[in-house]
């Protein structure tokens, strides 16, 4: 049992973190910050998995968390590489200036 801290508190924290990530994704204009918001969303997912895993006494959730970390790392590697090429070609990291494709 979690000493004194009920499962719902962890889940509420995870929802709050996830919502912060979504808000950051929607309202921030700097690509790096947007990318960090996505990482925040994935970490909220990890928190939710780990707390469920602890509560249910099952190890699957822990494993899933490890895989999510791997995916987040791979995404960061690919993402930063793409951000670098964008910056090299344009000299800006503002998403509003990514507008050369017709809308």
């Amino acid at each position: 049992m979690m000493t004194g801290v009920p499962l719902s508190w962890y889940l509420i924290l995870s929802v709050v973190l996830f919502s912060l990530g979504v808000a950051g994704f929607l309202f921030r204009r700097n690509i790096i910050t947007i990318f960090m918001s996505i990482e925040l969303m994935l970490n909220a997912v990890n928190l939710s998995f780990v707390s469920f895993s602890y509560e249910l006494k099952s190890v699957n959730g822990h494993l899933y968390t490890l895989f999510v970390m791997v995916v987040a790392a791979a995404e960061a590697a690919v993402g930063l590489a793409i951000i670098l090429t964008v910056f090299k070609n344009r000299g800006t990291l503002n998403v509003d200036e990514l507008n050369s494709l017709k809308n």
Partner: protein
Amino acid sequence: MSQFYTTTDHFVLAPALMLALFGCAILLFDFLLFPNPKDRKWLTMFLLAGEAFCGYGLWRQHSFLISNGIGEITAFQGSLTMDGFALFFNWIFLIATVVVAIVSYNYLEIEGEHHGEYYALILFAQCGMFFLAAGTDLVTLFIGLELMALCFYVMVGFLRGERRSNEAAMKYLLLGAFSSGFLAYGFSIMYGVSGSTKLSDVAAAFAARDPWDPMILLAVATTSVGLLFKISAAPFHMWAPDAYEGAPTTVTAYLSVASKAASFAFLLRIFMGPLSTSRPVWEPLLAAVAIATMTFGNLAAISQNNIKRLLAYSSISHAGYMLLGLIAGNRTGLNGVAVYVMVYTFMNLGAFLVVVAMRRKGIAGEDVDDLAGLMHKSPGYAMLMLVFLLSLAGIPPTAGFLGKYYIFLSLIETGHYTLAVIGTLYVAVAIYYYFRIVKSMFIPEQFEPAPLSTSLGLRLALGVTGALTLVIGIYPEPFLRMAQTSLMR
């Protein structure tokens, strides 16, 4: 072979293993064997060898299922399941990958970005698709999805020096990662409700609860958002036109068919598995999404001048039609989705291949006007394009008609008359914008002197997709049987 890796596990995993091995081998030996970009076209042969091994593995599984009269082989304690469904989709991925690979060498040379990594990336992407179609565990499915998506992010941005390609990759990456976050959150709720990551356990746990339970609702909502992003359904379709337009055309072709087919396989696994008991919750939601998808896709396509962007919007509307089959949800409907995915793969690939042929040194060939006079310049290509466009519009005797027929039939069988009527009305809109391309081809305008960029691979690929589009339309029985066996579970 230990208890963690049995012979059955190996048997099921073999096709994906071959793809991954050949992909790694290309990465390792590309520089040693082919320092000159001109020679890199031989990597296509290498890729085809990998696909041959993969196909052999699939074929062995196929005959094993038939000869033993069983529906599925499970491996890795139930996290991979090779059944008719997974096999059907894997054959589609294999054909799409081979077709895209054999047209790519010529195109990439024209673009001046012919690197060996390209071939490795499409093999890895196909490996991810294998897990999306065969995975029956939340972890396997998530990893498969990310493996596919990460390869596509890189491939969309493959033209490093070009601003549009960078921008497309950036947008695709940001929105793709965002949707994966939603999906993973939905999966965490599924795990919390059931205490297991296996789809069958999750389905049992969901069936035991009221579908209007807040936890279940949260899981349905977040998972649906993630999945609808991946199939580019409205209102989550914004990434598709940009990614399709900016990507190299061969990658656009691959992205529009293979990635969409894999995402649909994934969607069907989730919606017909764990979420099947929540049907009263998601059915009205998906119906609204399907209508919005067809509306946005078809109406936005009307005003496009860039063919890649036009086909992007048309592929969004096709996703709407496929969703209708899931909404009907009976046997005909699911069968219709399978047939539609197969037919869409061939006709959409074909249409993009003609756009690939239009790309020549110094000519982008991406606008509708660039096709002007094609009928007089190279009637063969124009006739093939006509077949693909007729098929996309759903006019008999082409294959596209068959796909739409089963979708509408299932809607009528289940009493969704309004949806059927709306779907039919949008077919008329679609005919309008497809025929803008046809009209442009038949204008007797003098075409620029530069010949179309043909290669053996391109002609072969066009022949295969064109023939399949016609054959499925005229003699559909064997293909329908294949689609039907895919659903025997």
